[in-house]
């Protein structure tokens, strides 16, 4: 589904990603872990097509297409979804209006008719109960005055509504208490299928107790320095990141 080859990227002239290689197949869950500043969020932003990030080398193929040439909205329409670390507030715009615009632009891209109000509201109801989100939250302006937890839950709700092929969760666990974490993780698990894939970007192992990854990759200084299964995450939880730093820095220098 996603093939990243030798990806280099910089922001404001500073090289952050220095050769990422990663392949993700349908049905898989990959966790990307690493210490602060290792490039985790940069990777997420580059995949989504954020303008400030410049790809200097490498390729990214998504569902057989080179997505580096696509605009952010076309990447989204192809089925790539980013759950933001800091979801943005849009005053005066309801979730309803926002999602309807998004959904219909995606449908238009695929050559489908816009979804009528009846079907749209039906889907809203269905997905709201799936990810356990309150109608009251949906009625309010998008993310405006939401608590950290509410914002993250709303991200998962949007993901449910848009049914992406590949979801990238960027530090979705940050700022969540244990109950919110469980609800968010439950939502993600329910949306999982053999046809879609998930990348979980996180600093801590605790989210991976709830969203169990098939693969764990450790990102450090812009490269994936270690890959493994869930046990790698456990090891990191026990030992921290220092042993990896020593490992890599030892080799590099």
């Amino acid at each position, binding site marked *: 589904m996603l093939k990243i080859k030798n990806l280099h990227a910089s922001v404001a002239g500073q090289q952050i990603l220095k050769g990422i290689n990663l392949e993700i197949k349908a049905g898989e869950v990959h966790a990307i872990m690493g210490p602060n500043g290792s490039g985790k969020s940069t990777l997420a932003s580059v995949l989504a097509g954020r303008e400030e990030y410049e790809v200097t080398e490498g390729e990214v193929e998504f569902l057989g297409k080179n997505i580096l040439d696509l605009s952010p909205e076309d990447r989204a329409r192809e089925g790539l979804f980013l759950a933001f670390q800091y979801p943005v507030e849009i*005053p005066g715009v309801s979730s309803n209006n*926002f999602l309807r*615009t998004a959904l219909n632009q995606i449908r238009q891209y695929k050559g489908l008719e816009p979804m009528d109000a009846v079907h749209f509201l039906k889907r809203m109801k269905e997905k709201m109960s799936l990810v356990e989100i309150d109608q009251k939250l949906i009625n309010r302006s998008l993310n405006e005055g939401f608590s950290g937890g509410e914002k993250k839950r709303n991200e998962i709700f949007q993901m449910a509504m848009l049914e992406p092929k590949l979801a990238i969760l960027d530090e979705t666990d940050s700022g969540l208490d244990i109950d919110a974490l469980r609800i968010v993780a439950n939502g993600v698990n329910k949306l999982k299928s053999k046809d879609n894939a998930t990348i979980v970007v996180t600093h801590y192992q605790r989210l991976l107790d709830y969203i169990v990854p098939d693969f764990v990759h450790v990102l450090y200084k812009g490269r994936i320095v270690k890959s493994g299964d869930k046990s790698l995450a456990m090891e990191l939880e026990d030992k921290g990141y220092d042993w990896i730093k020593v490992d890599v820095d030892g080799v590099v220098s």
Partner: protein
Amino acid sequence: MSKDNQILEELTSSEYKYGFETLIENDSAPKGINEDIIRFISAKKEEPEWMLELRLKAYRHWITLEEPTWPNVHYPKINFQDIIYYSAPKPRKELQSLDEVDPELLETFKKLGISLEEQKRLSGVAVDAVIDSVSVKTTFKKTLGELGIIFCSFSEAVREHPDLIKKYLGSVVPMTDNYYATLNSAVFTDGSFCYIPKGVRCPMELSTYFRINASGTGQFERTLIVADEGSYVSYLEGCTAPQRDENQLHAAVVEIYTETNAEVKYSTVQNWYPGSKEGKGGIYNFVTKRGLCKGNNSKISWTQVETGSAITWKYPSCILKGDNSVGEFYSVAVTNNYQQADTGSKMIHLGKNTNSTIISKGISAGKSQNSYRGLVKIHKRAENARNFSQCDSLLMGDKCGAHTFPYIEIDNSSAKVEHEATTSKIGEDQIFYCNQRGIDTENAVALIVNGYAKEVLNKLPMEFAVEAQKLLALTLEGSVG
């Protein structure tokens, strides 16, 4: 054919040609302004002597005035002798089908979601008999007539309802009020008059749309709305369609007068030609709009969506004279490219327990300048007056400007006056967030801007609101990214 006949034919046709031209010349005044021109206008309108006297009085006062320079707008000095002050409405070329209409205009109609029949009406295509605007007008006039509501062109009102005009004209905006209002009083060519009798609630939105002679109203429009005791009317001004009027100067006056327990809601969508992207041309829109809450418990509410004109200069205001009277001002003003707007409201509290609200949402894009200018004045006898003002500015890009000039004058210590102001920028973060959900930048800007202006748009009548929303998006098209 004999040679004589041929010559004869040439002669007659050329004579006809000249005759025709003379006819046209008779229908518009020569350039410039003087007492003769004003007499000419008055005669053209077949006005009674008293109306002419009023006009002349206004003119004689106007020539003693200086053009105001305090607004935060910049433009070359206007040559008032270079303007034609009277021109009869040009007969529009009747088109047979929409195929003959400028495709660009049709594209804009489509984006605004204007119905096909409406498109035909606006672009001057003959409309078939069933929905003929005449029959619409007839049924409309009948309903209003049964209720005693008067709704007609200003010229007609001067002839048919002189007592009402004499009583109310200039009662809210005195002839000597300001430079442009005085000019308007001297040379106004037409406009609307509306009178709602005691206790009548007007059952429909009154709109210039339905008015006879709606098309071709001059650049000096005069509107007078009088709501008698306990009556109510909602009045819509303007058209959201992109009619390109090339007149440079528009100096309209709108007066609203409410008696005890009466309420007037006045909504405007202004979309005059804003000038080219390079800032050439465009309308100077210098308008005086004021309402007088004369009676106790009366209410006047202004809602405006301003997206057009090269320069906008207007302050719809309320004089709250009656006790417990209420004044409201809801505004969205958008400027793009080189547009300049200096707009806001004045709330003058004279009566006890008077209450006013100002919600102003400015949006600046391109290289435009957008100023809010407002005055809240609490008179010393206005016990327990209350005002709430909120002035927000939204900036798009870094070459535009937003300015706020709030004036507050309080002479009564029981007053409660609140002022809130915010300035924000459409963030790249917001746009990227929308992009990431599959929404392109154009639609993202439309969503964000409409969200920002929602409080005001919600005050517009339903059909108007939908078009205004689309208009906002259209005005800002291409201003980001």
